[in-house]
């Protein structure tokens, strides 16, 4: 547990480094180069990969739910998103309610 604070400090430093570099370099480098496209791809792929893994193979509490239920809840969230004319808030709440409801129906312990 004690290792968590130094880790956080490192993560804070590397996160700010991108923002600080942006201020420093603004107006001096182009944002439409191949290097930028590549690093954008890596960043997108990394977050998408982590989110899909959490949905497909979660650890912790989500492990107690069924894969089919998690996928269904994501599908419901996405459907609500388009039906509500891209209202992200309503979609996220719908997805969370869906997983809770599906999980509750599966194991009604009263």
């Amino acid at each position: 547990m004690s290792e968590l604070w130094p880790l956080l400090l490192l993560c804070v430093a590397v996160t700010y480094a991108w923002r600080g570099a942006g201020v420093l370099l603004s107006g001096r480098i182009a944002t439409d180069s191949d290097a930028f496209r590549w690093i954008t791809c890596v960043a997108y792929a990394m977050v998408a990969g982590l989110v899909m893994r959490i949905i497909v193979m979660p650890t912790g509490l989500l492990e107690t739910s069924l894969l089919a239920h998690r996928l269904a809840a994501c599908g419901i969230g996405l459907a609500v998103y388009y039906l509500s004319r891209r209202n992200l808030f309503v979609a996220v709440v719908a997805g969370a309610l869906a997983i809770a409801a599906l999980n509750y129906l599966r194991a009604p312990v009263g």
Partner: protein
Amino acid sequence: MPAGVLAASYIGFGAMAGAGGIPIGVVIASTIAMWALPGQLVMVDMWQIGAPVIAIVLAVTLSNARFLPMTLTLMPVLRDRSHPPWYYYLAAHGLSMTVWTISMRRCLEMPAAERLPYFTGLAAACIAVSAGASAVGYLLAGSIPPLIQIGLVFLTPVYFFVLLVGEARSRLAAIALACGGLAGPLFYVLTPQWSVLVAGFIGGTAAFLLHKALERTGV
């Protein structure tokens, strides 16, 4: 409305971190000092599965790379002679997807001198809401039945799922998301502790090359 989405996603983050045994101080401090939900999620998730520190720091670094082009495009909008240089370095910390999207639209409608204070105020408000929300999520997670708790913990994954699928406007982003989405679970099976880093690197590079190949063939 952005405040509601921010609050929901950070309540989810707080609940997830709380359920995973992360101390509340670290949860709140990460929201204020990192101010990057994907990076925070990467850090908390990888730490929970016991990934090496170097892998976590590298993954957090790469997952936050979007801040460089975002800052580069926003700075010319905020520039005004009336502000000292350090103000920009301080304000840059407040940059996030939400703040960037709103500022890029609203700042152009106001006098140049007012843009930086507007951006700073907006960012500070968003950080305050999110820090509060992560604390609320953390405390809620410990005090409600597991069946409802699962809904809270699911807020962050479903938020990113809908955001990434629904907002993938460019073909490059869509290909990168698809490659990453496939690579994430796949590499988790092969190498759990390094999976986030390797999946991002290989999935992202594959997407980049695929996009280049498509461009070359003129599709």
